[in-house]
């Protein structure tokens, strides 16, 4: 396929010209998006870091560099520590509940052939509806008897009434329950897709070898689903770390009560930044949130890279 030098030279020139044109076009296409990511994502992130080292309320024009004192401040602020601890509780109660329930549901759904997409449709409805609306519906359902429908149901079953959102011990789990209800459908869809990716031959072969149902589940299905379980655990952990809307709408005046018992990190940030206008402290708290999310994500990559190949 060798051609003479003479015929290649002009062709080569054409190719170089075309390449130049394509490179220029690419940069042109990327120009607005790159400006967007630089000014709406990257610069604000740097700005938040910087802000966390300054003492600044939004009204005064002075920004004083104060080093780490905002960080020292929040870790000595009992309310911040409560919010951090609460956030941890949201994750510890919420993530296992979502994962176990949705995995169980997906396994059940995988058993049936008829109405599969109908059930999936119903389970995912809470996920796509506005959290503000569903939070108020649950707040209404959690009311005291005789108006709270859940308490009415409990008394119908002969069980004692519960305080739910009015109690310092029950409010946080109640909000977790609402959030779990909202997230299950999303996880069921992803789990179901993962289950349907498992080659039927694996299960058939094991069945022929005399494996029973329990062995099939714990020795084949769940190990093969491992990457999906890790992925969903991570996305759900990040979601619960960032919980805000449910708490804002389900607690009295959106304060994370009673007595801060449901106050999560993001609500603390919101109050510091937009109620007390203490931007430096709020920015420091957002950096803490960022570092937690970063740690979880790095952990996920490590776990997934180490995963056993079957």
């Amino acid at each position: 396929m060798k051609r003479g030098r003479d015929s290649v030279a002009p062709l080569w020139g054409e190719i170089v010209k075309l390449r130049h044109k394509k490179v220029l076009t690419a940069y042109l296409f990327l120009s607005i998006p790159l400006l967007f990511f630089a000014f709406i994502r990257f610069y604000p992130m740097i700005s938040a870091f910087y802000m966390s080292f300054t003492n600044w309320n939004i009204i005064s024009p002075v920004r004083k560099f104060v080093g780490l004192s905002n960080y020292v401040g929040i870790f000595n602020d009992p309310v911040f520590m409560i919010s951090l601890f609460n956030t941890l509780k949201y994750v510890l109660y919420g993530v296992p509940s979502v994962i176990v329930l949705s995995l169980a549901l997906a396994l059940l759904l995988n058993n049936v052939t008829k109405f599969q997409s109908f059930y999936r449709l119903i389970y995912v409805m809470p996920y796509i509806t506005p959290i503000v609306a569903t939070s108020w519906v649950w707040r209404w359902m959690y009311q005291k008897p005789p108006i709270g429908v859940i308490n009415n149901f409990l008394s119908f079953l002969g069980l004692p009434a519960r305080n739910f959102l009015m109690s310092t011990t029950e409010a946080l789990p109640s909000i977790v329950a609402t959030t779990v209800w909202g997230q299950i459908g999303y996880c069921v869809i992803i789990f179901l897709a993962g289950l349907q990716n498992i080659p039927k031959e694996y299960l058939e072969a094991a069945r022929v070898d005399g494996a029973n149902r329990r062995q099939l589940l714990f020795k084949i299905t769940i190990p093969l689903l491992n990457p999906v379980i890790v992925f969903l655990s991570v996305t759900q952990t990040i979601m619960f770390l960032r919980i805000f809307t449910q708490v804002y709408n389900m607690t009295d005046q959106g304060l994370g009560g009673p007595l801060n018992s449901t106050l999560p990190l993001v609500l603390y940030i919101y109050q510091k930044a937009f109620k007390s206008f203490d931007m430096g402290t709020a920015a420091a708290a957002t950096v803490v949130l960022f570092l937690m999310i970063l740690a979880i994500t790095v952990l996920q990559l490590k776990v997934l890279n180490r995963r056993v190949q079957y």
Partner: protein
Amino acid sequence: MTRSDRMVKLVSYIVLSALAIVMIFPFFWMVLSSLKPFREIYRPYLFPKSPTLANFQKIMSASLFPRWFLNSLIVALSTTFSVMFFDSLVGYTIAKYSFPGRNIIFLFILSTLMIPTEMLIIPWYVMSSRLGWIDTYWGIMFPGMITAFGIFLMKQFMETIPDDLLDAARIDGVSEFGIFWRVALPLVKPALASLAILNFIGNWNAFLWPLIVVSKPGMYTLPVGLATFSSENLMHWELIMTGATVSTIPLIIVFLIFQKQIIRGIMLSGLKG
């Protein structure tokens, strides 16, 4: 099919149906409560004795709900169109052009996925108040005009388009933008539809940023309006539930129409894993 197989199936259907009722009950309760007159709302029965649409009339005439509805529609539609255009353009460019810095640019865009919105809202707020974006549609919309996840998704799909097809169009004299717009884009329609519908839902439901950037009640989006309206009418659960119904029903309709695209979109969001 063995007997135990049939048992497993039966039990599955029973458990699935029971849970389906639990999942859907809050919606029923919401709609039923919205149909009750005030004097019935504190009574412990499920169905309204004298169902009425008065709550809806009240909300539509005596509150700003119609305006909030319009605001949400404007915001969600505009961001969705912007995301459809820019995400697919960037995904296409990264997938189909080779140019210096391509990988670095892609990594830079992907790395922004790591930044939680909560970290950006304070600088965004400062920026918006300096530039006069507070209480404007643009102020509500600008953070969501382009998404890194959508770019990632569209790049995956654009890569499946054969280069020969694009080169053929090039030889026919189609402009570079024309190749993207008329050749590449129609080929990734299903993925684009899923991205669009999930984006619409996400923007329709967004709460934290609109809550911060808007202070004038006339500029509230539906979620912010509903939250404010509800905390101002705490004893009137029938009105709160009517507001919740008004903000939920359009989404349920969208959902029923586009369920295939939505389910697909959710599956695609698991693609990262």
